């Protein structure tokens, strides 16, 4: 177990991608980073660059236009990586399931590791989802968490 694997689990960096969500879950993801919930104390940092990221947080359902962007970003993240689908509509399409431009949940395009329920998902639930993802990640890199 090297230093890189350890730090990947101890301080994972996050890439937040918004498909065609309603913003509800996006502002909750952002709220996780601000003083009340403050996930930065666990070493989680929000990154704009996919090549720096370990965990991808996706909000919103996939539509026909963002599908390509989503796949593109996913492929740019170095392995091992985790994908968290935040919110009902990122998990299944949710309230938008019968809209004509919607393909459905994020798992229609890329593999998803953790689904966070809720519309909008509460910050507590999102943090819970991240913790679950980290447990999976530590198994994947072979580090005891």
């Amino acid at each position, binding site marked *: 177990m090297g230093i890189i694997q350890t730090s990947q689990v101890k301080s994972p960096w996050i890439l937040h991608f918004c498909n065609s*969500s*309603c913003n509800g879950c996006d502002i909750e993801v952002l*709220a996780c980073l601000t*003083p009340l919930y403050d996930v930065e104390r666990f070493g989680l940092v929000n990154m704009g660059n996919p090549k720096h990221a370990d965990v991808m947080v996706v909000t919103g*359902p996939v*539509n026909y*236009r*963002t599908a390509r*962007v989503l796949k593109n970003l996913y492929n740019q993240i170095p392995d091992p990586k985790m994908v968290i689908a935040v919110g009902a509509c990122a998990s299944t399409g949710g309230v938008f399931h019968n809209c004509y431009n919607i393909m459905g949940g994020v798992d229609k395009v890329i593999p998803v590791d953790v689904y966070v329920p809720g519309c*909008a998902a509460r910050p507590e639930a999102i943090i819970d989802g991240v913790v679950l993802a980290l447990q999976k990640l530590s198994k994947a890199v072979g580090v005891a968490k």
Partner: protein
Amino acid sequence: MAPRTVAPFGPQHPVLPEPIQLKITYEDEKVVNVVPALGYGHRGIEKACEINEYPKNIHLCERICGICSCMHGISYCEVVERLWPMEVPPRAKYLRTIWSEMSRTHSHLLWLGLLADALGFESMFMQFWRIREKVLDLLEMTCGSRVTQSVSVVGGVRRDIDDEQKKICIRTLQEVRKEVEALVNVLATDPTVKARTVGVGVLTKEQAILLGNNGPHLRASGVKEDCRMLGMQAYGELGFEPIVETDGDCYARALVRAREALQAIDLQLEAFSKMPEGEIFVRPKGSPPANEAVYRCEQARGEVFYYAKGNGTRNLERLRVRTPTFANIPSLLVMLPGSELADVPIIVLSIDPCISCTER
């Protein structure tokens, strides 16, 4: 002449969580041309509103945008009520006003935080968002949810605010007001904030009117225009006066939003003191008749316009929504050319873009 470069700004980029793409042409560091490319957030909500029955559309309309969710839901209910037509009880009107202003407060605080973040003023970003959590707590206490409130229904509202909650609301709002005031003072006088925003992205009054802009963006250019002046819901009884600045730059837009956040708290406090007792809901009879109606509402980002057409069944024949950001994006084509590359994020942010509203 320096060679020109075309660089895409987005759809995945650090200033906004939302996907918007601007194809920007630069000459060295100067922006010369901008072409917005939209469509990443399109879901097809208007069409889905024709498929669903009319009471279910409230949930869909609330998810046009999660930040102004409450006001989208209220606007949808108001337009269907005008289609009928039916009158909601006065207490329900006041409750709707209170929740609208509460979401305006949280939305403006959110924006002020994002602005501070775009300026690299991390501590102010955190402070604004810390205060905003208190407003979200009030929303959660009174509506049951932090973000998507779902309190409005056709014919009134689903929840009442009792005396106990009212007391907590008033106390918290007064606290929040004090804290926001202190922060806004910093924002308005800090030399680094001023250096980055004064004279950046200037939009004159004539240009703003010509481009059909609306909301705080328009008011920062010196136009006194606000849908709340029409006196819908309870605004007619609250003595509302719009806030206007004249400089039309990013600084003026920040000031308008900051003062509106404070004004929204005052409006809530006043609405609490004037709120009448009584019913909060009247049951609508049957299905919406074959009729059409429009409704204009002032959201945090500007004017939203709802059009609904019924055909006598339980489904609407057509629902059309025109959102504030749709009207404000054209102003980017005027403000961005001539500006520096480093100022692009602040200018884009200064229209308070809400892409999921615009594309639905």
